[in-house]
């Protein structure tokens, strides 16, 4: 891939202008502003940088953010696989409606999701009034953060696993059955390995989304420093206190994480493409 030379031996016009505009617009809107972040961070000395990004309150926010995002992505991996399975394999009334609604967290603005989840899980809300008397406090606790992250990450696993499940050859399951495998063995040893790249991709996407999420979480989180304060909120807090350097330093850490996840997802997709090549 990397050694492909620039080829223009095609009759289709417009290579120069379209590529030029693409690179220009990309630089203007995405790359230049992002580089501002890096440059601003570079104005800090290394000890200053470390002191900012490793302050106890910041570290506590990493723990909450990454911990909740990991748990939410895990739950979504499990249930997303289940939902994809049910939607692909079983015939149910209203299946298409449910299938369309799975994308709701993509389409619903995060602020709406935030206030809704917070009111549903509040002590007097529909679900909160059932859960709180049983000692399960969701709203304004780290558990609330997990709930919001589960909501916004819900479509990722379903949508990455679903097409792979749809395109699985019937024959491989039949082959497994002919060879004496029971349903669980067939799932465990034949189907799951086929679905694994897609499942991991979905997990990584949901995880990355959860870590960066802001709008749907701040309403339900309670935002208690050291307890239920997420990292993106901390960036905003610093910004509101005009601590631009502090905000930028923490943002850089998160950005690095985003790059890492992007790389992971790309590798996963390369893996699944190679996997798919027969």
């Amino acid at each position, binding site marked *: 891939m990397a050694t492909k030379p620039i080829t223009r031996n095609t009759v289709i016009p417009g290579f120069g202008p379209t590529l030029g505009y*693409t690179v220009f617009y990309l630089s203007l809107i995405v790359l230049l502003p992002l580089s501002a972040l890096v440059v601003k961070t570079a104005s800090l000395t290394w000890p200053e940088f470390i002191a900012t990004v490793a302050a106890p309150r910041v570290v506590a926010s990493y723990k909450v953010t990454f911990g909740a995002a990991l748990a939410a992505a895990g739950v979504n991996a499990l249930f997303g696989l289940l939902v994809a399975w*049910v939607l692909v394999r079983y015939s149910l009334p209203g299946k298409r409606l449910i299938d369309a609604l799975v994308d709701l967290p993509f389409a619903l603005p995060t602020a709406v999701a935030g206030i809704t989840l917070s*009111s549903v899980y509040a002590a007097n809300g529909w679900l909160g009034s059932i859960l709180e008397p049983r000692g399960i406090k969701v709203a304004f606790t780290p558990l609330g953060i997990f709930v919001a992250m589960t909501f916004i990450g819900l479509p990722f696993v379903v949508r990455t696993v679903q097409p792979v499940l749809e395109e699985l050859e019937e024959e491989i399951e039949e082959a497994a059955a002919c060879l004496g495998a029971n349903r669980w063995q067939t799932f465990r040893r034949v189907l799951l390995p086929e679905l694994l790249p897609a499942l991991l991709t979905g997990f990584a996407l949901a995880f990355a989304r959860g870590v960066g999420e802001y709008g749907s979480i701040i309403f339900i989180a309670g935002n208690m420093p050291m307890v239920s304060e997420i990292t993106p909120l901390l960036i905003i807090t610093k910004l509101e206190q005009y601590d631009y350097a502090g905000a930028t330093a923490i943002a850089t850490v998160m950005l690095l994480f985003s790059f890492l996840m992007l790389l992971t997802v790309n590798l996963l997709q390369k893996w699944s493409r190679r996997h798919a090549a027969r």
Partner: protein
Amino acid sequence: MSGTSAKSVRTRTEPAPVRWLLIIVAFLFLGLFLFVPLAAVFAQALEKGWDAYLVAIREPDALAAVKLTLITAAVSVPVNLVFGVVAAWAIAKFEFRGKQLLITLIDLPFSVSPVISGLIYVLLFGLQGWLGPWLQAHDIKIIFAVPGIVLATVFVTFPFVARELIPLMEAQGKDEEEAAITLGASGFQTFWRVTIPNIKWGLLYGVILCNARAMGEFGAVSVVSGHIRGATNTIPLHVEILYNEYNYAAAFAVASLLALLALVTLVVKSFVEWRMRETS
């Protein structure tokens, strides 16, 4: 062959009790995390009756927020639409070095936290930013003003159209365009009469998603907006303010507009998906 099209029931499915258990668990999960919140938006919005609902969405600050949201979408959707088509043309119709990197970079705004998407513009155009002093000297306001909101929105909606079109146009190849050119069509004629009809559903799909995000973006816009009521509040920001003022009924009334937008988006999206499946 004759038999393989009909699914054989016994080998490819689970026993009925297992099947029902899986369906029930899946529905419980979806119900808890999807259906209940969706129903709650509308239930809360109408809690104090239709009159209160209409008052809340007709209030001047709410109308100003709607107007600003529409302006934001009206700018960011077209610019990203043009970009998406141009980028997809360059990437799908030509081979060049660094193509994969370019695709990854185009996807970048998706993996950046919305808060950071807003922050970078503050760093560029804010008072302490690179261009801040110059902008102030010339009395141009970007941050805590409409241009900042539009810029942040353009950033977060940047990849939508492009990422829809690139795989679609790559899959379609370039045979038809080459045929049109050999028949004497100009580049623009080829584009309008051959390419566009082939990608129109994909284009609509990208635009729908782009628009939904543009109208609903909260985090990035929140950083650059300054929250000035009636001036720099989009609908999601207005919802936040109402909610923080404990004006729940009004907050949910305005939020229900966005929820409706989300439902319309899903309907159009399903329709477009259905059309794409039909035509392919």
